[in-house]
Structures are given as C-alpha cells and as structure tokens.
C-alpha cells in the first residue's frame, strides 16, 4: 500500500511540473522515476512512449499507466494514472471557477514566454539523454535522421512513423533468421 501511495505522489509531482503535452513530461519522468526511484530505465521509458503514441488516449496517461503497471500491477497502473491527472483536475477547476481571464493577464503572459524558453531547454536535455541510451550505432543514426526528416519536413503523421519503425524492426529480424538458415544449409 505504501508503494502504491508513493507511485501516486510521484506521478502527482510529475503532473504538476509538466507544462504542455506528453513530451514535456519526459524530463520529469527521467528525474523522478528513472533516477530517483529506479522504477524503470531510460530505454523502457522510450518504449512506453512509443507505444503510448500509437495507442489511443493521452500519451502522458499511457506512459504513467505502463510504469505503474510494471512496478506494481493493476493497482500501480491506476494510482499512476490518477496521480498524473489529479493536479490538472484541481488546478483547472480552480481556474475555471475563479479566474476566467487567467491567460489574458499580462503578468501570466510574461511568465509563460519565459517558461517556453525553459521548456525548450528541458526537452533538448531529455533528447541528449535519450540519444546516449537509444542511438548506439550508425544504423541508429540513420533511423534517427530518417524519422526527423519524416516528421519535420515531410509532415508524416507520428503514428505512421512509429508503425513503420515497428514493421522495419520485424522485417530486420525476419531477414536475420532467413540468413541464419541459409548459412546453416
């Protein structure tokens, strides 16, 4: 039970620190889940992100559910998902109830222009970490470059990029097996 509560509070913290979408959450997951608690490795977190991208629902919730499930089963999954959404429910309810013109206030706008710069720095740092653990050889660099071109220049839907990666991975394994058989013959 203690661990279930720990999962909830960790994801509550992650939820409260995440401005923007799923990707902005990544650095906080690295800090809280990978470095502090060791509930998942950097590689596992990317795997969950990838699956979270091409399954329905909010990426942040999908990733939280994965980490919670692999750490403590279904109760872990539920408490992780609830943890990551609770700050939003609290904060948005307060804002919707009391401050209708919240995002029009100049002071809020100044603060958020600044925060945008910090978010860029945080995500770039996350990419550097992921590069170290996920891109290990020339093949990885080629895949990285292709995916970047597909996403930024060709505007191919993200889900399609990941599905292509999955198919490519399976084809590579099939070819490897076929070759092995050929060698044995």
């Amino acid at each position, binding site marked *: 039970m203690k661990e279930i509560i720990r999962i909830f509070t960790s994801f509550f913290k992650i*939820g*409260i*620190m995440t*401005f*923007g979408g799923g990707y902005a959450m990544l650095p*906080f997951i690295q*800090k809280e889940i990978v470095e502090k608690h060791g509930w998942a490795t950097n*590689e596992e977190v*990317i*795997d969950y992100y990838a699956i*979270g991208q091409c*399954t329905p*629902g*909010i990426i942040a*919730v*999908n990733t939280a*559910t*994965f980490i919670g499930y*692999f750490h403590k089963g279904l109760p872990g*999954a539920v408490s992780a998902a609830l943890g*990551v*959404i609770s*700050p*939003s*429910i609290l904060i*948005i*309810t307060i*804002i*919707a109830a009391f401050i209708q013109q919240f*995002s029009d206030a100049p002071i809020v706008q*100044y*603060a*958020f*222009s*600044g*925060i945008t*710069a*910090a*978010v*860029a*720095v*945080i*995500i*770039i*740092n996350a*990419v550097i970490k*992921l590069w170290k653990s996920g891109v290990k050889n020339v093949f*990885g*660099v080629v*895949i*990285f470059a*292709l*995916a*970047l071109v597909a996403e*930024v220049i060709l505007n191919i839907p993200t889900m399609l*990029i*990941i599905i292509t*990666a999955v198919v490519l*991975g*399976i084809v590579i394994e099939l070819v490897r097996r076929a070759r092995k058989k050929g060698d044995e013959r």
Partner: protein
Amino acid sequence: MNIYLILFLEFFKIGLFAVGGVLATLPFLYDLTEKYDWITPELISDMIAVSESTPGPIGINTATYVGYTAGGMLGGIIASFAIVLPSLIIITIIAKAMAKFKSSPFVESAFSVIRPAVTALILAAALQVLELVIFKTTDFSSAGIAEAINIKTSVLFIILMIASLKSKFHPIAYIGIAAAAGIIFKM
C-alpha cells in the same frame, strides 16, 4: 439524457479514438460543438490557451475545463476520468502481453528501431517549442526576419541552455527562473 452521462460517454469516446496526443482530440471536440450548446469553438480556443499555460497534460486540462463549463465541478471530474479510462484499460492489456513477449527477438528488434525514431520525434517537438521561443511570428512577409526574432526569450534560452550543459539542476528550477525572468523583463 443526463449531462453527466453525456460528458462521460463523449469523453470516453475521445479517449478511445484520439490517437497521438492533444491535436488528435481537437477534431472530436469541434464535432461536439455541432451537437451540444455547452461547447462552442470559442470555448475550445479559450481552453487551449488555459491548458498551455497551466501544468498537466493538455488532454486532461481540456476535459476538466470543458466538463466544468458544462456540468460544474462534478462535470469536470467525470470528463477527466472518462478520457483516461480507455487508456487505463488498453495499456493494462498491452502491458500484460508485453511482459510475456518482452524477450522475444522480434520485440527487441522492433524496439531497436523505435528508440532512435522516438528520439528524433522528441527533437522535432523541441524544435517546435524553440520556434516559439526564437520568433514572435513566423509570418515573415509582414515583418522582416530581424524584426520577427524575439531577442529577450532567445537570450534567456541561450543562457539556460549553457547553464544546463555545465551543471545539472532539477528541471523545475529552470521553469521557476524562466517565469521570474519573463515577468521581470516583460517578455
């Protein structure tokens, strides 16, 4: 039909069908504006502004905001739970299957391609944010490129980037410092 039941069903549907982040939920939300009077295109654009400037996943913020507007506090809570319920069910099933197939060479091979690809996708997201930091507008026809550059936020970005490469702070420290700098220098 009861408003809470409608909120639950509509947001459950969005949670089930919107694949690939918050932008994917937008078409579903605009569909709702044609069916119900408690949601309008103006409300959706308000909600995007509020969501972008508050913590938490945008999808949840959106559900809470729209739910609250339509059905008060309980409406906000119901909409938020409804949008995550499909994730919870689907991911639990996938996680169960994954635990079984994790060491399969096919799964390993697939992930060896996925990892560098996702790293690139995240860099692409960073570039999008960076574009907002560097440029006030990307409409270069009305303003020259030099005029379009936001010098204050660009400088802040460079300072924070260098600081982050030299020493590691908790990410929340960057957010706090950047918010303060934004207010002080009227970015």
